[in-house]
């Protein structure tokens, strides 16, 4: 009988590069920046790492495929290094690999690291992808915002929310993240923005304007994990442990049958249900201290509040307007600025979310520190709402 991952693996150290337009460095520099911080935080030497998982999503346009870009950059010689990819949920996949390796007893200490060097691609926004065969013959190439913008159409139709009210609510989502991002020195975008500016910005994919879309950034984030026993033996106190790691992938039902109404993300609901079970959570609004969700677009964050069960269905737009997810709200969300302002270097994002929880749980979040957090949920989406993946990781204080 499977017992789940809860409290079997502890975070020994974490690191995260500054995100943004890193014209100054390549992928190897970003990886090194995040790794050095994590190594120092863990208080170990590199040679103690026994296996590594490397997440990068867009090999065609930046860092190249295979594990070699990582093993070469960090000179991880003679240990197993794997590269994983699951679109924008890649970072969480890297963490899952490392955590499972430790939990299985195969290794004592493992590394999870994700990176993306998007600003070498020449694109504003994500590069054009899609070089399969069959799908290319029939599926339109929409941009990433076009994939998520359709949630707005589905949501409006289902809950009879006026276009104006929904536009304001998603604008409020981004406004809140800008407020938070302004307090994060590692964030890509560190400026608060007025609602009026957000609402009147150029349309990218209706109804999403430019401020409804996250920053596309360079960056890397890293975790070193081990067992709670080893962590304690290494002198660590007040451990942050992994409570749940879950993943759900589309099998076609949403985009190929009439069983989805366009107002939510089924993968998030699947992964959340499993993660709450694994972590022993029955009331997420009460038991979770903070959320880092995949706010690639403002509308995504809005429906995610319902998918995670922290807003009632059809109510998230009102909850957002009432400040429920603000830094001083009932459940702070994107306290580090989120993808919106911290940025979204695809392969790194899942680990960046966990990094923020780790800082908050260890009381090191500086001016944005929340009061006595015990548990945080990271939500990492890949693909599009009707055809994608969702990875959820929950970390918290040991015993919480």
């Amino acid at each position, binding site marked *: 009988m499977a017992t789940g991952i809860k409290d079997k693996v502890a975070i020994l150290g974490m690191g995260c590069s500054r995100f943004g337009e890193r014209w100054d460095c390549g992928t190897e520099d970003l990886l090194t920046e995040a790794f050095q911080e994590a190594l120092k935080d863990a208080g170990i030497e590199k040679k103690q790492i026994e296996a590594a998982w490397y997440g990068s999503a867009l090999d065609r346009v930046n860092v190249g495929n295979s594990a070699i870009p990582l093993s070469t950059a960090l000179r991880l010689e003679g240990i197993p290094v794997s590269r994983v990819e699951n679109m924008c949920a890649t970072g969480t996949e890297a963490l899952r690999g490392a955590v499972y390796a430790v939990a299985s007893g195969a290794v004592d200490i493992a590394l999870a690291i994700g990176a993306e060097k998007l600003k070498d691609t020449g694109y504003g926004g994500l590069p054009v992808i899609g070089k399969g*065969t069959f799908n290319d013959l029939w599926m339109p190439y*929409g941009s990433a915002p*076009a994939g998520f913008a359709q949630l707005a159409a589905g949501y409006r*139709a289902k809950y009879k929310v006026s276009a104006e009210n929904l536009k304001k609510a998603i604008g409020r989502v981004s406004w809140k993240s800008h407020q938070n991002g302004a307090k994060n020195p590692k964030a890509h975008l560190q400026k608060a923005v007025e609602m009026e500016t957000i609402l009147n910005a150029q349309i990218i994919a209706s109804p999403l304007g430019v401020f409804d879309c996250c920053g596309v950034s360079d960056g890397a984030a890293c975790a070193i994990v081990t067992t709670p026993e080893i962590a304690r033996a290494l002198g660590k106190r007040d451990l942050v442990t992994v409570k749940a790691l879950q993943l759900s992938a589309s099998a076609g039902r949403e985009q190929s049958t009439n069983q989805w109404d366009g107002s939510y993300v089924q993968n998030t609901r699947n992964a959340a249900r499993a993660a709450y079970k694994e972590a022993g959570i029955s009331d997420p609004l009460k038991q979770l201290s903070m959320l880092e969700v995949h706010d690639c677009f403002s509308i995504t964050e809005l429906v995610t509040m319902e998918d995670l069960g922290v807003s009632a269905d059809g109510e998230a737009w009102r909850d957002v307007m009432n400040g429920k997810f603000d830094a001083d709200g009932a459940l702070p969300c994107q306290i580090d600025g989120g993808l919106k302002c911290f940025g979204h270097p695809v392969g790194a994002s899942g680990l960046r979310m966990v990094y923020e929880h780790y800082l908050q749980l260890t009381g090191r979040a500086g001016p944005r520190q929340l009061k006595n957090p015990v548990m945080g949920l990271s939500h990492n989406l890949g693909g599009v709402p009707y055809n994608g993946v969702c990875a959820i990781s929950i970390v918290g204080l040991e015993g919480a």
Partner: protein
Amino acid sequence: MADSPRTGIKSFGAFIPRRRLQRSAIAAAHGWAFPALKGLAKGERSMCSWDEDAITMAVEAGRDALRGGSAGSIRSLTLASTTAPYADLNNAVLVGAALQLAPSTASSDATGSTRAGLSAVIAACRSGDGEQLVIASEKRQAKPGSVLEMQVGCGAGALGIGTGEGVFARFLGSETVSVPFFDHFRKSGSDFDYGWEERWIRDEGVGKIVPKAISTLLKRLGLGADRITHFGVAGGPSKSDIAVAKALKIAPEKILPDLQATVGDTGTAQSVLLLIAALERAQAGDVIMVASFAQGCEVVAFEMLAAAPATGRRGLAGSIASRIEETAYLKLLSNDGQIDLDWGMRAETDHKTALTQLYRVADQIFGFVGGQCTACSTVQFPRTPSCVNCGATHTQQPYALADEPAKVATYTADWLQFSPSPPLYMGLVQFDCGARLLMEMVDVGPSGIDVGTPLTMSFRMKERDKLRGWDRYFWKAAPAA
């Protein structure tokens, strides 16, 4: 007249691209250099969107003609066009695949002159070999600033021709003249026509060659010119039809509308569209006479046995009525590749097509045939080994989606992704039969779309592989007219 075997027209269909460019917009754009164009700046002409060509229009006209009939009974398909995209590739086979004609259908391209449309109709009437589908389709292009640019249009017409029951317009006969009167030409590989003076073409060409051919045909059929109820001339300068009618003493009210005000001159398709215009208004006993002028002429005569039966077809009248007014002249140039706009990096994507893959799924891509699971009845696209709903393996039976009613489930207007006609409307299309897929939405007019907007399917180009010269075709959804 009733003695000859009952061969003739059993069905018809038409398609005119919905975009109608205002001639005033063309004239305004060229006013600085060619102020005289203002004199021609009346009415509108049809223009193809970037994703429409002679093949896609032929498919739409063919579907219209097959409405209420059976694609499986068609024995031969002829595609007449001087602008079919491929020089070495049977364009008709591609059209037939989209129409889901049987693989045993004889398929051929007819080309070489704008007369090819009527020639193909006559050949089909003369062959008497089972059910035949003749489609004439033309995407006409003209040099910017030319008079021709004001006159041409794009469109397609289709005729189902056969023998016996179902024939409502009996083929009476035809006449052909082949003479080296070269009013215009276009060399292989060239984009544009080169033409001679209109007055010479009208007076020495159409004015002498066509009346003579018609007189010969009338004499052979034992008919007087006064028996002609519907009369049209394709291929000459404007008002050629009036001149020919006058020469033959055909009353002016018998002359069919020349489509200049609404569509323009559609080249190879024009004679077939004129025939269709006649079929749409003719009653039992009426005689239709249509000529197509080019290096001589073809003339054909039909006698209506009964008014055309209603099939729910769009027809020519319906196609003309289904329109979106267009005033952006530069869109015409961009669609036709006559100006190369800076579309940015997102337009650089390589669209190489695996021809192996395309052949494996040809019925899905060209015919829009999905699958229905025999275990749970779910209709789905694409058709893959395991059912999307119940997971049963190898239970998919072909299920055609092109004519199934559908609605918008989700949508957005994407201004970021490259589209030659921004914004790219896309979203999930929900078919009433249960199938659902992500599709591009086209021909969105000023009233826009929303969740629930009814959609019809339209065969279009999906992407163009400019590096290799290959066009991907698939279906897109358009707001129902």
